[in-house]
Structure formats: structure tokens, C-alpha cells
């Protein structure tokens, strides 16, 4: 059987047809709620079928897998390892978001807001994203890419009357258009070299090796804008916070990963890749990771904070890719496998925990009506399980054991060590610098996520919460994602196997070394389990001890300070102040302390604010500078017709002069 889908195409096709059909109820049913529920349900079925179809492919079974049997539908669709892997990620994240929609969009229906258009665009978004990773034809790829970007843009407009939504979505809109221009050139060059529009035909010959750097730069910048690498990230923290939560989850979890997909896909035909490409990616990535998380630390808007964390995680994925590139350039499959393996697994992991965190923050947003974490607090007493789920996501995203974030970072660390070991010379020094950078990122992430968790959930309520409602759909969707975090953390072997298979199918040419599989996953499982086991045992012991020696609650002691009020708690600004002051020129971090030192002091206040460097120092000034230059061009905007008649004469003279020069 020469098809990567074991049950054949029918399940696959029907899954997509059903997803498409989900639009139908929206167009024919008048009743918003009924239309939405039916359509969402159909969409869910379609996605589950799609996931089943993906999971029953050869990638996820024991069947062997060669790159020849991946092309479908007259080569327009390719379901090879990489494609199937990303398809899996998309569907895996899409399902919880769609479940979440049931409760989330109910709020909007209650507000009498029309959600039909949003749901339609969301369906189109899901379908087109799946097509992006399946497309094997460049034009199909570009079309799906654009449809994906635009449907996401249109989906963002759900709360379009808000100023910030207008601004943020516009950033997104412009960025996605900009990068498509770059991708055009990229694909044209490839088309020109190979005379084919099929991605699977893109193999560069020896004669065209000189093109590789250009193609690489184009691909890295083009896809890098989508992925949100640091200098190109300016749109991301503007756009992700303002989207409806489901969409932000999907944007941060999946859409930006299409950029990663693009870079990885590109790599498949940019061989042999020069080593500096790997270094470039490494440097950009470590920069993105450090400053992404540092910016995140300075934010008070929970969704913007998470958006900056996406930049950080994209940086970590990029680090993996960079190692892979270096391995490939030096012809060392071991390093390659570790680098790409770490990147691929982190892509999956980030998709999972980032959507978990976004959806969790969406629940809070719906109940409190604010995204400012300074106004939250003590939510653990209202929603214990939400706090636990959010905590799982936070630990995972900080890369701390025992959850999935650690696993992928572990692979990347191992990749660094391996690179240093294989390529002696000055490599250990450089690799160590990157390791330290990555460890630094981990430390910042810990600071950041302890900040949000404690400010949002712990302590006492800063603003009175009237009632806090979480529906069962929220729990299901968050639960699925949290469960995945735990499973991948405690038992990564199957996922490692899949990643290894993806790499051996299309990345590493010869029989791939089993560097990934040979890592001590069993020890990790045992250690994590024993930590869990130890904590549980100790917990019961603690209960017994409490029974024996007593336990009671009382007002917090706090050095005997009485009459604590919620406003006296440590705030997010003050928690992060010390760290943010250090790179304040880059974070554009400024504080406003207003305190009076008079005998009878007035109320004093403290504010901190950080704005994006690239956005505020490069993009916006650049644009306004251009505007200023343009406004100097006065001679074109005359009302008097005589000028235009003079232009006729002038142009004739100029053109004649050119003609004269021609001879």
C-alpha cells in the first residue's frame, strides 16, 4: 500500500468534508445559538475524525515509512512525517479550543453579539491551517497560508469596536501581508531553479548551491515573521492579546508554529546548508528567548504576557533548529537528531501548554472582565481546579520537571552538550554560552510564572469577585491539555519515538542514529514518578502528623503586622521591578513613583510600564519618518490643473531625453 494513511483516503477526506460542512448551519439557521452549537459540534466531529485519520497514519504506527508514499491527490497534498506531525499538533490543539468554544462563545451570545462570522472564520482558519502543512504545491501553500492569516485576522474582529482590537489586528494584518511578499520571492526562486511548483520536487542541484544563502535568508525572515523571532516579533504582542481567547490560544499555540513548519520544510531542500545559517538562527533565537521572557516579565496584561512567552518559546524551538542546522552542516546526524528532535517536541509541547494557559486566562477574563493581573488575586479560593490546571501549564512552560516542557528542553540541552563533544575546538565555549543563556531563560520564566500564578491565584482578592463560574466545557478542554502535559512529562517515550520517526523521514538522510531514543527516558520516568510518589506519601504522613500535633488556621502573622488589607500585598509590578530595572533601556521600562514625604502624606502611587523596543523605536518611528518625508512631497498635490498640463510637457521632454540617451 503506497499511502501514508493506513485506512486510506476516505476517512481523511470525510474529515475535511465534515469540517467544511460545519459552515452550513451558520448560513442556513437564523437562531444564533442553535446555529453555533450545531456547527461547533459538527466541527468537533470533523476534527476528531481528522485526528483519528492522522493517528492512523504510518507515522503513528509501527509501519515503516518511506517518503515516496506520501503524495496524494496528484501530488498536491503531501502527508510525510513533518506534515503529519504538524497536522497532529493542529488537530490536537484545535479539539480543546472547539470544546472550549461551547462555553466561551456563550458569553458573547448572552451579550447579544453576533458570533456567526467569528465561528465561520474560525472554521476556515482551522481548515486552512491544516492545508498549510499538507500542501505540496507552492501556490496551494501560499493560498492556504493567506487564507489562514486572513481568517485569523477576521476572527480577531469579534470585539472590533475596541480601540486596542483595531490596533492589534492591524499589526497582525500588516505583518502577515509583509511576510507573504518575502515568501513570494522565496517560492519564485525555487520554482525557477527546479521548474516545478511541487515542494517535493525542490532539490537543489550543485549548480544552484550559491542560491542557498539567499533562500535561507528569505525563508528565515519570511517564516520568522510568522513565528515571531525577536526582531520580527513586533506584531505578535499586539495581536495575540486582543483576539478572542480561543483564537489567541490557537494563534499562539499553532499558527505561529506554521512559521516553524516553514523553516523546517525549507531545510529539507536547502542542503547542504552552510554552518553560519545555524549560528544565525541560534543567535536570533537566544536573543528572542531571553528578551521574549524578559518583556513578558514586565507585562501586566495576562494575554500580552503569554504572547511574549510565545516569543520566548519560539526562541527555544529556534535554538533546537539552530543546533540541527549546525549538525547538518558538519555532517553529524547525532547532533542533527537532537536539535531537530528538541525543536519538534518543544513545538508540540508549547502548543499544548500555551493553549492551556491562554484558555485558562480566558476563563478568568470572562469572569472578571479584565486582563490586568494587578486587579486579580486570591482566585484559588474561588476556582481551585482552575488554579491547579493553570499551575500545571505554568510549570510546564517554565521547563521545570516533571512536565513536558522539561523533556524538550532536556533534549536541547543534550544537543548542546553533544555538539560541544563532537566538535571540539572552540565549540564548547560557544555552546556553554548558549546553555547559560538557556538556563537564564529558564530562570526568568520561573520568575515570570511564579509572578502570574501568585498574583492571579494566590493571596487575597484585590478586587471583589461577585461570582466565578467555570463550565464543564472549560474543565474538559483544559483538562485534556493538562493531561497531555503530564503524560508527555512522565512518559515521553512514545512521543520521542514519533519525533524520531519524523526526523528519519525527511531530515537525516542515512539511517538515523537513535540518539534520541538512547537517552535515559526510563530514568526520567522513574525519577518523576518517585517524586510524585514521595510527595503523596509525605502528604499522608503530614496528615497523620497534623492529626497528632494539631493544625489550625489563623490570620497571617507577617511579623505581627495587623490589619493587612488586600492592597498591601505585593503586586506584579513590585515583584518584577528589580529584574526589569536591569535591562530597562531595552524594555523601555519606566516607573512612575508618586510618593509624598510630607508630615501628613498624600496617597502615593507606583506604576510601571514597558513597551516594545522594536515597535516603539524602529517600526513606528520608521513609519512616521516615512510619513514626514512623504508630506514634503508637495509638488504632486496641487489643485491647479495647469500643473498637470505642465506635467504632460515635462514628461514628454524627460522621455525624449531618455530616448535621446538611448541612441
Amino acid at each position: 500500500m503506497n499511502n501514508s494513511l493506513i485506512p486510506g483516503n476516505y476517512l481523511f477526506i470525510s474529515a475535511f468534508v465534515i469540517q467544511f460542512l460545519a459552515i452550513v448551519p451558520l448560513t442556513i439557521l437564523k437562531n444564533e445559538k442553535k446555529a453555533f452549537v450545531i456547527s461547533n459540534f459538527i466541527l468537533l466531529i470533523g476534527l476528531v475524525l481528522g485526528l483519528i485519520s492522522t493517528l492512523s497514519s504510518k507515522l503513528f504506527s509501527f509501519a515503516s515509512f518511506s517518503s515516496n508514499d506520501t503524495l496524494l491527490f496528484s501530488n498536491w497534498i503531501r502527508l510525510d512525517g513533518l506534515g503529519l506531525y504538524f497536522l497532529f499538533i493542529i488537530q490536537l490543539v484545535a479539539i480543546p479550543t472547539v470544546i472550549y468554544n461551547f462555553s466561551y462563545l456563550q458569553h458573547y451570545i448572552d451579550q447579544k453579539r453576533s458570533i456567526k462570522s467569528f465561528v465561520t472564520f474560525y472554521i476556515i482558519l482551522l481548515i486552512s491551517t491544516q492545508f498549510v502543512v499538507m500542501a505540496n504545491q507552492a501556490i496551494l501553500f501560499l493560498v492556504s497560508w493567506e487564507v489562514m492569516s486572513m481568517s485569523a485576522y477576521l476572527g480577531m474582529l469579534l470585539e472590533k469596536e475596541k480601540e486596542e482590537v483595531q490596533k492589534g489586528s492591524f499589526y497582525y494584518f500588516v505583518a502577515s501581508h509583509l511576510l507573504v511578499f518575502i515568501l513570494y520571492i522565496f517560492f519564485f526562486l525555487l520554482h525557477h531553479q527546479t521548474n516545478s511548483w511541487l515542494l517535493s520536487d525542490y532539490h537543489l542541484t550543485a549548480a544552484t548551491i550559491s542560491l542557498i544563502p539567499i533562500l535561507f535568508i528569505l525563508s528565515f525572515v519570511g517564516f520568522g515573521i510568522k513565528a515571531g523571532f525577536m526582531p520580527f516579533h513586533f506584531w505578535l504582542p499586539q495581536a495575540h492579546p486582543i483576539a478572542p481567547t480561543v483564537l489567541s490560544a490557537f494563534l499562539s499555540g499553532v499558527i505561529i508554529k506554521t512559521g516553524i513548519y516553514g523553516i523546517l520544510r525549507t531545510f529539507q531542500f536547502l542542503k547542504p546548508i552552510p554552518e553560519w545559517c545555524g549560528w544565525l538562527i541560534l543567535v536570533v533565537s537566544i536573543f528572542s528567548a531571553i528578551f521574549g521572557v524578559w518583556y513578558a516579565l514586565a507585562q501586566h496584561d495576562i494575554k500580552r504576557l503569554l504572547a511574549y512567552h510565545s516569543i520566548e518559546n519560539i526562541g527555544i524551538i529556534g535554538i533546537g533548529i539552530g543546533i540541527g542546522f549546525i549538525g547538518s552542516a558538519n555532517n553529524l546526524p547525532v547532533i542533527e537528531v537532537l536539535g531537530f528532535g528538541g525543536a519538534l517536541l518543544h513545538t508540540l509541547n508549547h502548543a499544548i501548554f500555551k493553549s492551556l494557559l491562554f484558555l485558562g486566562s480566558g476563563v478568568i477574563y470572562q469572569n472578571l472582565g479584565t486582563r490586568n493581573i494587578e486587579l486579580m488575586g486570591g482566585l484559588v479560593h474561588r476556582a481551585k481546579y482552575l488554579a491547579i490546571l493553570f499551575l500545571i501549564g505554568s510549570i510546564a512552560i517554565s521547563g521545570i520537571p516533571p512536565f513536558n516542557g522539561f523533556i524538550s528542553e532536556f533534549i536541547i540541552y543534550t544537543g548542546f552538550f553533544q555538539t560541544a563533544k563532537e566538535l571540539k575546538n572552540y565549540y564548547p565555549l560557544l555552546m556553554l554560552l548558549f546553555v547559560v543563556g538557556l538556563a537564564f531563560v529558564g530562570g526568568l520564566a520561573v520568575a515570570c510564572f511564579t509572578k502570574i500564578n501568585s498574583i492571579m491565584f494566590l493571596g487575597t482578592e484585590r478586587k471583589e469577585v461577585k461570582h466565578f463560574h467555570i463550565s464543564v466545557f472549560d474543565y474538559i478542554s483544559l483538562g485534556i491539555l493538562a493531561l497531555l502535559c503530564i503524560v508527555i512529562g512522565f512518559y515521553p517515550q512514545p512521543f520521542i519515538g514519533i519525533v524520531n520517526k519524523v526526523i528519519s523521514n525527511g531530515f537525516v538522510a542515512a539511517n538515523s542514529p537513535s540518539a534520541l531514543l538512547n537517552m535515559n527516558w526510563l530514568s526520567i520516568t522513574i525519577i518523576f514518578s518517585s517524586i510524585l510518589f514521595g510527595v503523596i506519601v509525605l502528604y499522608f504522613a503530614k496528615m497523620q502528623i497534623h492529626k497528632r500535633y494539631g493544625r489550625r488556621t489563623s490570620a497571617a502573622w507577617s511579623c505581627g503586622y495587623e490589619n493587612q488589607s488586600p492592597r498591601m500585598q505585593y503586586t506584579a509590578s513590585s515583584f518584577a521591578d528589580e529584574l526589569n530595572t536591569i535591562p530597562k533601556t531595552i524594555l523601555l521600562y519606566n516607573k512612575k513613583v508618586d510618593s509624598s514625604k510630607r508630615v501628613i502624606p498624600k496617597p502615593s502611587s507606583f506604576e510601571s510600564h514597558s513597551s516594545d523596543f522594536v515597535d516603539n523605536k524602529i517600526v513606528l518611528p520608521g513609519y512616521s519618518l516615512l510619513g514626514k518625508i512623504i508630506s514634503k512631497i508637495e509638488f504632486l498635490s496641487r489643485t491647479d490643473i495647469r500643473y498637470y498640463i505642465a506635467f504632460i510637457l515635462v514628461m514628454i521632454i524627460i522621455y525624449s531625453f531618455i530616448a535621446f540617451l538611448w541612441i
Partner: protein
Amino acid sequence: MDIEILQGPIAIFVIIGIAPLFAGFINKQKAILTGRIGAPVLQPYYDLLRLFRKETINAKSSSFISQISPLINFIVIIVAAAMLPIGYWKPLISFNGDIILFAYTLGLARFFQILAAMDIGSSFEGMGASREATFALFAEPIFFFTLGSVAFISGLTSIYDIYHSIRLDNISYIVFIIICSISAFILAITECSRMPVDDPNTHLELTMIHEVMILDNSGFDLFLYLYSSYIKLFIYAILEISFFYPFSAKSYLLGIVIFIVGSIILSLTLAIVETITSRFKMKNIPQYLLFATAIGILNLLIYTFTK
């Protein structure tokens, strides 16, 4: 053969058992150096026992985080301890890459410690948590510039292997290792909240880091916290001592001797340092830590380019 399997568990029990003694030892020496008689060497054990038997009081504003955080802290510290070698004894947990796991398990402990501090909702604990997050961040690179740089040079990723790859046959390598051990000492001071970064003796100062985070804990919870902090101190002491294992010339017995002697010398050194220095200003601490990092970078640079 049987003994080899038992080496790991025994080592852990030794570490867990000796850790309070080590702390008591430092305190005693400090007291003597400052001309006091001081508490008995076993005082930490008495403290722990006392706390174990006390009633536990939790703040009203606290949540389940305060309940589980001490447990996680304790277990995780033990797991980290299980990765450390004592002499030539193979630790319980030893595999390729455990150096990363070591750093990150301590990260887990820190994560919960900070959360538990913030759980109370008091500004004192908040301040401590904020500082802990900040300084831990700058301490992280030092760890990688000490142990990590040795690992990168040797190409090994298990703590046990890393320490035992140290050879004393090359003069530049010896210098490299000595500087690494100095960095490791600074790391230990930072991570274990000792002078000049933190003062373990006072509680009620706004200058506190670690101690202020556990202000509102009592009874069994405080017991666990305190015990974990003793173990943590000892863990970092072992990280430092282990640099001197190469002198043992692969003898089990000599290794243990070095371990014991090293512990004693280290405790003395710590006591002396704590006696003769005073606390830094809070805002100077990151600079101090960065200084240690810089030493690490310079060290590695010199080593890489003089080879």
C-alpha cells in the same frame, strides 16, 4: 556487587543525616570565631525535633500551595541530593544529562517556594519571593560556568562522571578547576542564603531573602523547610568538595576521607567568611553574582585559547 547497589541509598541517608550537623558545625565555629560559646553542634537536630512536634498554623489566606510546597521542596531536594557522589560511591541517580535534571529539580523547589511565599498574601513574603526569583536567576549561570564548563570540556553530562573526569596532569586545567571551585563557592553562598548575600541569622529585617519567605510557616511545614535548607546547604557543599576528589586517586576510602575533611574545611571557610564579611546592599547583589559569572566566562575563555 551488592554493595555497589547499596552505595546510592546509603549516600542519600548519609547526606540527609549529616546535613543538619554540617549547619550546626558552621554555627559553632562562627560562635567561637566571634568569641561566643554558641549553641551545641547538634542544635539543628534539636530545632528540627522541636518543630516536628509543634502544632502547625496556616495563614487564613493560604491555599493548598502552602500545604504541598514544603513536601515538594523536601522531596525534590532529596532527589537532587541523590545525584551527588560521595567519594567514589556511585550515586543513586546517575545517567547522562543528570546535570540538567539537577539544576531543574532545584528550579522546581524554588518555584514552589516562591509560590508558597506569595500564597500568604503578605508584603513581607512577597519581598522575599521577589528577591529569591531575582538572585536565583543570576545564580543559575554560575552553576553552568562551574560544573557546566567542566562538563563541556570533558564532554560528559553526568555529575558523577564530570567530577571524576577531572585530571591533575595539565597545569592550565588545574588552574581552570581551581577557579571553577571558587565560583562554586560563591554559588553555594548565594544559593544557601549565606553571607554576604543573605544573613541566615536574622528574621525580621527587610534585608532578608530566604528566611523571610517562610515567615508564616510553622510546625511540620517549617520543619520540612528548615530540613530542606540544611540539605541544600550540604548539597552545595558537596558540589564544592567534589572538585577535590581527584586527589583520592580512585580509592574508595580516600574519597570518603576527602569528603569528610573537605566538609570540615569548607564549614570552617564558610564560618570565617561569614565572620569577616558583612552583607552586601541588596542592589549590589546582582553585580556580585555577575562578577562570579564573569570569572567563569573568563576562565573558560582562557582555558579554551591556551590549550
